[in-house]
C-alpha cells in the first residue's frame, strides 16, 4: 500500500451499499474505526451492524439537496460513490437516471457541502473493445466504449461530467477507479454467470487476453483512495493477463466456439436469467483487446494481492465448493 496521508477522514459516506463494492467497503471502513454512513433507498440486510444507515434515493429529483444537507449536518469528509447498476437492465432510461443523473446529484452535493473527497467507481469497459487498441490502455486513452452498450456509454458520460466537475471545483479531490471484470467468491453478476455456464459460448477464431480484478482488491483500492491516496483517474486492475481459452481450461470448462455473428443473435443466453438487455456488446469484449495498464494505479493505491490468474482460481474454486456443498 502506498503511504496514506495522516489526515484520514473521520466520517465517510458510501452510496450503493446494497451493491458489491459498496457494502463490503462500508463494512471494511467501519471495522477500521471510521464512522460510515451508508446511503440507499432502504437498509440492506447484508449491511454490517457497525455501519450507520441513512435513507437516500438518488432517483429523487431533490436528492442532491438532501445529500448536501446530510453531509453538512454529519460532517461527511469523503464520499464513495458506488451506486451504479452492476449490470444493464432492459429499462435504459432508468439505468441512465441512476447512473448519470444520480452521479450528478452526488457531485452537486459534494460541491454544496464542501466535501473534501469524492471517489467514483468506473470500469475499464469504458475504453471499449476495439481491434486498434494497443495491448495496454493507459488512463489518457480516449474512452470509446461500445456504441451498443448503453450502460458503458452512461459511464463514459459520468466520466466526462466528472472531468468538468474537477475543473469547476478544484477544492474537491476527485478519484475515479476504473476496474475490469471483477470476480471472486461473492460475485453474482452477468459476467460471473456467463463464466459459470455448463458450456461457455465463445466467439470463434478469437482468443483475447483478459484481465480481471478480485473483489477484495477492489475494496482495498477504494479504501486507499478514500483514506488519502493521491486523487486522480486510475486503472485498478490485477497484474497479469490470460487468454480466454486458458481461463476456461483452468476451470475445466467446456467452450462452444460459435461464429461471432451468430453469437450476437444468441446473446440473450448468459443474461436470460435476470436482464432483458441483449448484451451484443458483451461478445465484442471477448473478441478484441481492452486490457488496461495498471501501473499508475498500483503506485498510487497499492498493488492488488491477487493476480488475474489467482482471481480466476479464487472465483472458480469458490464456485466448485458451492456446487459440492
Amino acid at each position, binding site marked *: 500500500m502506498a503511504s496514506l496521508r495522516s489526515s484520514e477522514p473521520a466520517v465517510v459516506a458510501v452510496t450503493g451499499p446494497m451493491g458489491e463494492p459498496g457494502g463490503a467497503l462500508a463494512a471494511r471502513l467501519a471495522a477500521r474505526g471510521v464512522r460510515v454512513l451508508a446511503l440507499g433507498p432502504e437498509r440492506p440486510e447484508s449491511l454490517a451492524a457497525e455501519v450507520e444507515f441513512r435513507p437516500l434515493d438518488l432517483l429523487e429529483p431533490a436528492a442532491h439537496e438532501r445529500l448536501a444537507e446530510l453531509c453538512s449536518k454529519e460532517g461527511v469528509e469523503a464520499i464513495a460513490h458506488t451506486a451504479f447498476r452492476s449490470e444493464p437492465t432492459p429499462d435504459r432510461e432508468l439505468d441512465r437516471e441512476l447512473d448519470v443523473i444520480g452521479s450528478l446529484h452526488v457531485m452537486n452535493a459534494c460541491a454544496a457541502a464542501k466535501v473534501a473527497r469524492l471517489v467514483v467507481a468506473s470500469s475499464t469497459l469504458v475504453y471499449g473493445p476495439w481491434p486498434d487498441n494497443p*495491448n*495496454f490502455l493507459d488512463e489518457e486513452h480516449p474512452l470509446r466504449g461500445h456504441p451498443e452498450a448503453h450502460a458503458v456509454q452512461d459511464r463514459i458520460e459520468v466520466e466526462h461530467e466528472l472531468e468538468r466537475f474537477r475543473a469547476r471545483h478544484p477544492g474537491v479531490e476527485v478519484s475515479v477507479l476504473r476496474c475490469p471484470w471483477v470476480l471472486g467468491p461473492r460475485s453474482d453478476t452477468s459476467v460471473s454467470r456467463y463464466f459459470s455456464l455448463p458450456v461457455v459460448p465463445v466467439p470463434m477464431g*478469437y482468443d483475447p487476453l483478459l484481465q480481471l480484478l478480485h473483489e477484495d482488491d477492489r475494496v482495498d483500492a477504494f479504501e486507499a483512495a478514500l483514506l488519502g491516496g493521491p486523487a486522480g483517474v486510475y486503472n485498478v486492475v490485477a497484474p497479469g*493477463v490470460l487468454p480466454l*481459452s*486458458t481461463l476456461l481450461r*483452468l476451470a475445466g470448462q467446456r467452450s462452444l466456439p460459435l461464429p461471432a455473428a451468430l453469437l450476437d443473435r444468441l446473446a440473450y443466453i448468459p443474461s436470460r436469467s435476470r436482464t432483458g438487455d441483449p448484451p451484443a456488446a458483451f461478445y465484442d469484449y471477448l*473478441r478484441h483487446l481492452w486490457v488496461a495498464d495498471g501501473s499508475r494505479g498500483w503506485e498510487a493505491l497499492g498493488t492488488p494481492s491477487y493476480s488475474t490468474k489467482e482471481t480466476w482460481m479464487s472465483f472458480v474454486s469458490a464456485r466448485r465448493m458451492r456446487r459440492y456443498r
Partner: protein
Amino acid sequence: MSESATPARDAELREALAGLRREIRSRFASEPETASAAPSRQRRADAPRFDLSRLEKPLRSIRQRAATLGMREHAHETDDFGMDPEAVEALRPWLDRLYDRYWRVEVEGLEALPEGPLLLVANRSGLLPWDGLMIAHAVERARGARPRFAVADWLMAQPFAQPRLARIGAVRACPENALRLLRSGRSVVAFPEGARGATKPFRERYRVQRFGRGGAVRVALEGGAPLVPVGVVGAEEAHPILYKATGPARALGLPFLPVTPSFPWFGPLGALPLPTKWRIHFGEPFALGQLRPDALGDELLLSRLSDELRVCVQELVDEALRARPSVWG
C-alpha cells in the same frame, strides 16, 4: 489444531486422496489399471463382435476437437503480450526448416549489434508476416532472446489469425506497444512502411516507401533503444503479386486480395510462399543517445532522422540484392 486431532486428520486426508485417485482413474479409463486389465480383455472375447464402446474414444476426440475449433488445443500461460513460449517451441522445428532449407536465409551484420533491447526497422514485403518471423528467428539464433514483430492492424484483427499470431510473438503495430516492449527490455521488429509497403507493385518491390510519421524514431528515442536498420531480400518474390483484387478484399477487411502465380488458383495451397533465396542485412545502429534531450519535440529533426533511416534501409536492401546471385539463389 491440537496434537490429538492430527492422526484423525491424516486418515481423513489419506481417504480424500484415495477418493481423488479413484476419480482420476475413472475419468481416464483409456489407461486401465494392470489389475483390471486381464478380466476386461476376457470379457471382450465373448462380447458381440461389434462393440459400441470401441467407438467411444474416437467420438470423444471428435467432440473435443469440435469444442475447441478455432482455438489452440493447449491452454498454456502467455506473457503480457500473449506470446506462448510453448507454442513457439512447437513451431521452432518448422521455422528452422523454413529458415535453413526452404529460404536458405543468409544474415549479415548481426554480430555487430549492441546488447539490450533493439528497435529493428525493416522493409515490409508481402501480406503475410513471413519477413517479421524470419528476422525474429535470425536475431533469436544469434542473441538468444526472441524479438517481437509488429503486424499490421488489418491482419491482427482477422479472426483465427489473431490468436495464432499473438501466440508466436506478433504484436499489433502501434507506438504504444513498441515502447512498452522496449521499456520492458524486449526487442521489436517494426515495418514503418505500413500498408504502403505491403501494397507496392511488384516492379517496385525493393523501393522502400516513405516511413509513416517518424513514429519509429520517436519510439526509439523515448524507449532509449538503439535503432537498427534492416534490409530483407527474398520475401517479395516469395509471393509475387500479379494483380490486386480490391473489390472482394473489402468485404474481408483486407487492403487487397493478392493474385499470385499460384493464388487463388491452387486454393489455400497457393498461399504457400515460393522457395526464394533470402538475405537479411543488419545495418549499423543509429546513435540516438547523442541527440539533445529535447529532440523529441523537434518535428523537423525527427522527420529528417526518419528519412535518413529509410535511406539506410534502402542501401541495405540494395546491398543484399547485389550479394544475391539470383532470386532462387
